[in-house]
């Protein structure tokens, strides 16, 4: 039962995302045989250097009833070299790797794929330089903002094959 409940829940989320998708977000399981492995595409938020870009990510969900957060791996290696993003919603409720997050910001079983993707979008728009996934990028963001933005714009263009 455990697994089928989790599967059904993911199916609900999938249906919700495909019938009523939030702007700039597309997500779904790679194959319908395995509901626990998803791919997601996020549009770069408008008004930021990420505008126009499309950022793919992989999501792997635990078999249990979502008591743990899914694995989120962003496929954009330039700013996020090992694919991990640092967003509190993706941190399990128990431990606090950075010692500053509120428990209320972290993962809970009532969170949804949609909320994760929206969080990622807002992270692109307003990165949190206190817990950077890429320290170099965060330093540049803090000290040489225009250079950072130019670099992001170049990378976005490159990513699109322009």
């Amino acid at each position: 039962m455990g697994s089928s409940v989790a599967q059904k829940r993911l199916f609900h989320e999938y249906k919700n995302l495909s019938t009523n998708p939030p702007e700039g977000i597309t997500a779904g399981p790679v194959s319908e045989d395995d509901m626990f492995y998803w791919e997601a595409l996020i549009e770069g938020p408008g008004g930021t250097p990420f505008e126009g870009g499309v950022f793919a990510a992989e999501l792997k969900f635990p078999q249990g009833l979502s008591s743990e957060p899914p694995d989120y791996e962003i496929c954009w290696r330039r700013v996020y070299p090992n694919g991990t993003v640092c967003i509190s919603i993706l941190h399990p409720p128990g431990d606090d790797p950075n010692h500053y997050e509120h428990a209320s910001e972290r993962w809970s079983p009532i969170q949804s794929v949609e909320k994760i993707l929206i969080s990622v979008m807002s992270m692109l728009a307003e990165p949190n330089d206190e817990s950077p996934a890429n320290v170099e990028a965060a330093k540049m963001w803090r000290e040489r903002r225009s250079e950072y933005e130019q670099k992001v714009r170049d990378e976005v263009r490159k990513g699109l094959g322009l």
Partner: protein
Amino acid sequence: MEQSFELADSTDWIDTPLNLLGPLESSLRCQICKDFFTSPVITSCCHTFCSLCIRRCLSSDHKCPVCRQADQELKLRRNWTVEELLENFKKARPSVLGLARKEAARIKNGGDDSSEPSPKKRKVNHLDEPEPPAALSPRRVRTRSRGAKVQADPTHGQEEIEESDVAIEPEVIEDSQDEDYSDDGLVPCPICNRRVRQDTINTHLDTCLAGDSPKPPPVKSSTAFGYRHPQGSELKKLERLPAINYSLFKEHALRKKMRDLGISDAGPKPLLQRRHTEWMNLWNANCDSKNPKSKSQLARELDTWERTQGGNAVPSAPERNPVTSKDFNAAQWSANHNDEFKLLIANARKKSDAQVRSTIPRVSESSNAAAEIPSPTVPSPHFGTPAADQNDSTPSG
């Protein structure tokens, strides 16, 4: 798009004139499993979840998933109102959704779009109305749904209404029977709703009809929800399992306890703990259920858990399609699968040859086709199947 998902969901209402029922349906769904509540229980912070969902959460995290207040399984209380609300909503859902979809289709097809606003508005009122009374007794629902049918009459064909008649009536009757004939041998008096012994119902009815009418109303209001819980002997049979402090149990004591409960005692202690917790959650959630399952059914559910998350679960995720992974080594892949690719290419060529041959008689007038036939070694993209094209290019690139 809707046809490809057979799963009922709150998004079903979006494209209908009754899209305001979407949020209503969302609020009747558990936030954890996104399904309709199963044996809903309320936490001490007043949030409602399926019994099993919240038990699983609390046993791993000890906090309410919505507000993160600390809570204990012991403090969960059943939420009968929600359960009843849901039961009635689920009964009404198919016919209401059917009507709403028909209406949506009619609006889409019909040319009377311009004159639509006022009739549409009226319809929303009609069909919204039967929803709130769902919280009342099943008997009420029956009269209301009849009312709804009468209201729906002028706008819909006769046979459709006939259909919904059939769909709604028997279920509701069955339900009220369920409640009226519980195992205590008492039946409710139709006048005052008091429960009396079956063999004395006639004499009771006589006195009830003859006189003491001032008394019944208060009695009736106390059972206004018309929802009799299986509080009697049935519940006492199912005793809840207490939570165990695992650190106080030696491994062999825990094994013995699990044997006594009739569940497997195999595996290392951490697995024993997880299995015991899961069993406790399944068992206690079953105690909250209106129609409890048998122990063997619970054992089967534990078995499923064992296969997916317990001792028999595959440690890491099953094999993914490696082609989609980021560190995909194309050269290695094509070397490893060279034989298969060759086989596929050979098959594809055979197929495309056959296709060419079969198309010649029909396309005989085309010189292009004729020109392309003598090159079976290089399957042209026009004749190769998409699979053949793909496999053809993979090993080379």
